[in-house]
Every structure is written in structure tokens, then in C-alpha cells.
């Protein structure tokens, strides 16, 4: 196993089942993942797909592991226009129930040396995870805070 590049942890006041639903159902991701519809409800071998708010396909990757509501692993290759063509990296979600909260750990790894996509995503996950936490705790996700000119690939 390669050394993970990013490990993000957030504690969410919700059950692992709720968190699982929020990260796999496109109807729910749309409400906090800045309008993206991310569908990851299938079994290993099925696809995880993501559609941008503009209706562009942003991801179409294999689900590698799925053990609801504990562990979800999928490939990760952005299909946005103007994104460097690199092989898929890997995202792992681990959910653990702790004192009425869920500890959600997102690990993003399996990048090639010198990956440019790795540089581009570093600010994305904290924004998504903060918004997910707000969404599950208050019913409302956050507004995107990045400056769009800096991330033209997200348009």
C-alpha cells in the first residue's frame, strides 16, 4: 500500500447509517456537495458516478469495496475538462460510531509521484466534509467558498 496522501477526519452528530446515506445517495450529495450528484450505492464492481451541477459527467469509477455503513472504497479519476490525464487514485471512507457521533475518516491515496491532480484536490475535501457535517447537523450544507476563477475545472 502506498503512503496515504491525505487523511481527513470529521466528527458528525449523526448515526453511521445517516452518514452512509449522505455519501452514497445522489439526491443527498446534491444538497451539500456543491450541487454534485454523486451516486455510490452499488456493490463492488458497480460504478460510482458523479454529475456536475452543469450536468457534465465528473466521475465514472469502479466501487472497490462497500461494507455499509462502515467502509466504502472507490476509484477516483476526475473527468473535468482541462484536468491532467492521470490514472485513477483511490478514496476510502471509514465510518465509526463514537459516543453518539460518527467519526468519518476520508483517506485519499494511490497517486503517482508528481501527480498534478493531487495538488488540485487538496482544498476540496475539507470543504466537502465541512459542508457534509453542516448538512447532517443543521439540514443545510454550506455555500462553496472557493473562488471560481481559481478552479475553472469545476465549472
Amino acid at each position, binding site marked *: 500500500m502506498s503512503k496515504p*496522501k491525505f487523511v481527513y*477526519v470529521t466528527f458528525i452528530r449523526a448515526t453511521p447509517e445517516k452518514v452512509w446515506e449522505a455519501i452514497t445517495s445522489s439526491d443527498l450529495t446534491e444538497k451539500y456537495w456543491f450541487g454534485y450528484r454523486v451516486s455510490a450505492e452499488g456493490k463492488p464492481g458497480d460504478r460510482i458516478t458523479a454529475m456536475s451541477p452543469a450536468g457534465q459527467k465528473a466521475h465514472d469509477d469502479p466501487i472497490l469495496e462497500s461494507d455499509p455503513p462502515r467502509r466504502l472504497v472507490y476509484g477516483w479519476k476526475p473527468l473535468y475538462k482541462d484536468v491532467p490525464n492521470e490514472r485513477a487514485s483511490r478514496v476510502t471512507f471509514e465510518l465509526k460510531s463514537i459516543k453518539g457521533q460518527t467519526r468519518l475518516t476520508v*483517506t485519499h491515496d494511490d497517486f503517482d509521484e508528481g501527480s498534478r491532480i493531487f495538488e488540485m484536490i487538496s482544498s476540496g475535501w*475539507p470543504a466537502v466534509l465541512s459542508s457534509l457535517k453542516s448538512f447532517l447537523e443543521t439540514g443545510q450544507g454550506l455555500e462553496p467558498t*472557493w473562488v471560481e476563477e481559481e478552479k475553472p475545472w469545476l465549472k
Partner: protein
Amino acid sequence: MDEVFRALADGSRRELLDRLRAGNGQTLGDLCDRLNMTRQAVSKHLGILEEANLIATVKRGREKLHYLNPVPIHEIGERWIGKFERSRLQALSDMKKALEARGE
């Protein structure tokens, strides 16, 4: 959130976070290198940072790797910095950096 501010209130702990920002996924040994602190002190600071969820750790074999976890800091930013202020703040921060660089 109190824990986050308490953890950030210490210069040594901020330095450890800076080091992880420069190189994510370091072991305790890596972090002690060229640092004017005992191994025990570094270990204690890392414990406080982990407690505040500012770092995440991953066990790999016998090693424990430390990662900067920016999610709580992001949440603080979200609380007090709105969507529209961010680009103005970025511009000001870029200007400050550019002017300071010229003065060097």
C-alpha cells in the same frame, strides 16, 4: 471548538502543524528531527493536536504516520468568513505577500 483554539494557542504545536503542512504523513521520529524539543514533549503536543482533531494518524506496520487535518480549521473559517469575503481576503493576502517579498 474550544479544544481547537487551546491546541493552536501554543507555538510549538503550530510549528508541528507547519511541518506536517510541508510534509504530510510523518512519523514521530521525522517530526523530532531538527526540532528543539524532547521526544516526550513532541509526543505530548501531538496527543493534544490529535485530541483536537487537528491531526489524524494512520498506523502503517510499526509506524504511526501523522497527517494535518484541516477540516476543523476549515469549519472555523466557514463560521466567520462568508463566501463573498473570501476573494477579497485572498486579494489582500496576496498583496501583503507581494509587498513583503519586495521589501526583502
